[in-house]
């Protein structure tokens, strides 16, 4: 798994509630069994015009946001479908962090497994950061530090956040979660034999 300790970069505000994973990547582009190849269809419905050309109105088509690494979003970002191609597409575009008041739960977990840290901050804090970013015409950089669990605005104002401990460790160290669990196999086997005696119908 790809590790992430901290990221500093251009931050793109997309301040709408309920941006669902169908918007992040429509089902039409979930094709294939590959782990890659989804970035070009990120936000397809808003990003491209009907003739396939870039929609100039869409923020990620506008400099400097074309190089954004941090996404600033509103409540319930990534709600809806469990499609893991949503964080994959965001990652391929270049995003390493998403700062929002809340996230769809499945998407939240999927982010960690694709090298993106989803950061929960109160809406007032997200709005303050957005205001600074917009005042700088997008040039002001935002830092998300997973190690220190802080977000730093372009002016240097620091906002603390709390990441789930296990997922944070996983992402900081880029560990392979499966190996981590396989290392506990003795415990798992012991649990399973006890459980099998109690609930044989589950096996």
């Amino acid at each position, binding site marked *: 798994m790809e590790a992430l300790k901290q990221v500093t970069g251009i931050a793109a505000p997309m301040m709408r509630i*309920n941006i669902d994973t169908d*918007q992040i990547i429509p089902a039409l582009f979930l094709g294939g069994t590959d782990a890659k190849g989804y970035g070009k269809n990120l936000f397809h419905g808003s990003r491209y015009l009907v003739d396939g050309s870039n929609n100039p109105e869409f923020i990620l088509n506008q400099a400097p946001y074309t190089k954004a690494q941090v996404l600033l979003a509103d409540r319930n970002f990534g709600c809806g*479908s469990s499609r*893991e191609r949503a964080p994959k597409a965001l990652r391929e575009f270049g995003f390493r962090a998403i700062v929002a008041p809340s996230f769809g739960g499945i998407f939240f977990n*999927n982010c960690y497994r694709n090298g993106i840290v989803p950061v929960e901050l109160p809406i007032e804090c997200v709005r303050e950061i957005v205001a600074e970013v917009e005042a700088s015409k997008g040039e002001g950089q935002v830092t998300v530090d997973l190690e220190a669990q802080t977000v730093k605005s372009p002016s240097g104002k620091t906002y603390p956040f709390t990441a789930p401990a296990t997922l944070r460790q996983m992402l900081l160290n880029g560990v392979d979660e499966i190996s981590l669990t396989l290392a506990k196999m003795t415990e798992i086997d012991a649990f399973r034999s006890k459980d099998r005696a109690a609930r044989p119908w589950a096996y």
Partner: protein
Amino acid sequence: ADLLQIDRLVLHELSGSQAVRALAEAGRVPMSRTQVYTVIEHLISTLPGRGPTDSVSKSGPIMIETTRRASLDWGFHFIDYNDPRQGIAHVVAPEMGIAFPGATLVCCDSHTSTVGGVGALSWGIGATEAEHVLATQALAQSRPKRMRVNFTGKLAPNVYAKDMVLALIGQIGAQGGIGYATEFAGPVIANLPIEGRLTVCNMSIEFSCKYGFVPPDDVTFEYLAGRQFSPKGAMWDAAVKHWRTLRTDEGAVFDREVTVDCNTLVPQVTWGISPQQVTSIDGRVPDPADAADSEARQLGERALGYMQLEAGASLIGLPIDVAYIGSCTNARLSDLRAAAAVLKGKKVKAGIQAVCIPGSTPVKHAAEAEGLDVIFKEAGFEWHESACGFCGHIGDNRFANLRVISTTNRNFEGRQGPLTRTHLASPATVAASAIAGAIADVRKT
């Protein structure tokens, strides 16, 4: 986070194909094959006479074939496109007794909570999580907060489980369930047959709640008895004894309690691009200017633009292009019966496309045995093979730019096709609207 034993992993070709490929490429093997079930259902064609890899999705054939090969090679329980047990995973899992009370059941699909309707703890996961489950039959999850939704009162005729859950989402919002597991309770749930409970649990994720369930009771045990994978004989007795302990403790404390009064509940229909944008069937499109906060106002404005609606417009009488009955939400036998009762002896309005895709092949066969297919076809509905069909847009542009009234669960932008405008409602409301050619109040048909 705690590491949970996973009793059931359900795979399908859309995301299961990614998980099996990733596992194989990492040189790993599944840990517990008998606990893994695969169903071909997301991308497979719904046309009569479909072949083994027929799909409207360009990459459908490769995804179906990858999933099929891995499932056969690894010896999972495998339900192929032509298996008489085939259907949408969340319909098949309770139908076959794959899901059971207290089961931890996961699937790469956000509507996995559907099977919470039989008392399972079930939730949607990503493909990487599924790979982890394949390799370890375990998954780490953080403990959710607890919410209880009490449906009080009594349902009036023509009001269904779909209306209950849409009203709930209207009440608490599409973000109302973030971080929670939701128990559905109250007298209306107690009296609701399993199929209705499955519909309510199906839409948990539409208020951003990963887990939704109804504690098991006699209705549940009766439903599961004799199903293919349900325990039999002495093991059944032991299982029921255990399942009876899975009741909510008297005086249990929840982080949040919500009450939905069903005495005043009428059929619901969505008007916007989020399931929270819902109203009573006799309601009007709200004015975004009246929204509670700036975000809701912005969402309202965007919805009016996308849905091509004016604030203040009546929903009843709004012309539709398509009536769609299908999906893991509302395509079980009781749903088809409710729709057929409305359609019987009537005709779909000329120029309306009307499509019915049964939730599973057993549902389809049972409906045919009762003659429901004849009612649907004589009314002017297409009658398809079971699969996810037109619930999501996977390649067929048939509903592009059209207004659809649909028994599915998502009215997101583009969900059913490019610029497709989806209105969610119950099967009875969809049937009534198909006849009227416009959104209609089933109570007045």
